[in-house]
């Protein structure tokens, strides 16, 4: 009976003590350490690749930043750019608008003196332009030809043309009345 109890005690204490694993020096900690090293092994190449990528992209990013500082005015940013900035002039905002310069370049075209040649064909063209209220090149160029009768742009001026027609063609009518 005593021997059996002693054997039970020995096996019980041995098994119970074997189940105890100290947290700091047990096999579980030794098995967990390689897992942490694996994380480091994965993280180190990633960090190296990120560093190489950052070094490769750094010049481009710096160039992009310098290019971005050019259009800024010196007063808006607190930093002084090392590169010489173009002088700020009021004409610079008008430079990138070529559409407005087109009418100024087309200004010599109306200089063809249509009123100086009072032919009926030209007057008929002017009457058609006056009847349509749509925007055309002719009204924009009108201020340069203010003294001309077509520069009024009013429908009354259109009646000028047809009023002359009877005068020009009055000779046959007079002959008929006669």
């Amino acid at each position, binding site marked *: 009976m005593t021997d059996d109890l002693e054997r039970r005690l020995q096996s*019980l204490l041995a098994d119970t003590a074997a189940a105890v694993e100290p947290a700091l020096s047990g096999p579980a900690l030794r098995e967990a350490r390689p897992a942490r090293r694996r994380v480091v092994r994965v993280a180190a190449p990633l960090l190296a690749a990120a560093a190489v990528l950052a070094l490769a992209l750094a010049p481009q990013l710096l160039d992009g930043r310098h290019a971005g500082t050019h259009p800024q005015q010196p007063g808006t940013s607190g930093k002084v750019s090392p590169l010489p900035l173009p002088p700020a002039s009021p004409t610079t905002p008008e430079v990138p608008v070529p559409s407005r310069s087109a009418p100024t370049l087309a200004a010599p075209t109306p200089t063809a003196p249509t009123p100086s040649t009072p032919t009926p064909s030209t007057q008929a063209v002017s009457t058609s332009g006056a009847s349509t209220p749509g925007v055309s090149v002719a009204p924009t160029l009108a201020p340069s030809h203010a003294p001309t009768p077509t520069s009024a742009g009013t429908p009354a001026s259109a009646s000028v043309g047809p009023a002359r027609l009877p005068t020009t063609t009055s000779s046959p009518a007079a002959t008929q009345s006669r």
Partner: protein
Amino acid sequence: MTSAEPFDRYVAEHQAGLVRYAYLLCHSYALGEDLVQEVLIRLYPRWAALAEPHPYVMRSITNEYLSWRRRWSTRHIQVVRDDVLHLRAAVLEPPGDGPDPELWSHLLLLPRQQRAAVVLRYYEGYGDAEIAVLLSCKPATVRGHISRGLATLRTALTAAEGEEQR
């Protein structure tokens, strides 16, 4: 601070065994670690003066376990009695987890001196003289502790078997 290297080597070699021994004494893993840690901290300043540190550490752990209840009672307010704590421990740790839960539960109910003597005899394999040194008593006292402890266990197991047969 010159004893740092031998101390580290000893802890690396014996910490697991010390914690297992402390766990068998107090049946609490956290308390066993605390016992070992407190003893090692106390012995570290005079570690170089110890010729044979391991028996001294074992004796210190045993004495710490035996005196723990005294100091514990002065430091903490005990709201329940020991038998209630044992019942609670039996509930928290189901008997089906250990290798011999019935014997283990009866071993927990032994007095501290008897339990320490039984553990030192049947786990560490020490003789009466070694156990007497660790427990700071005579070998005859050690034999008395072990015999009374075994008698208590035998009575408890016999009573449990009689209840199962009914």
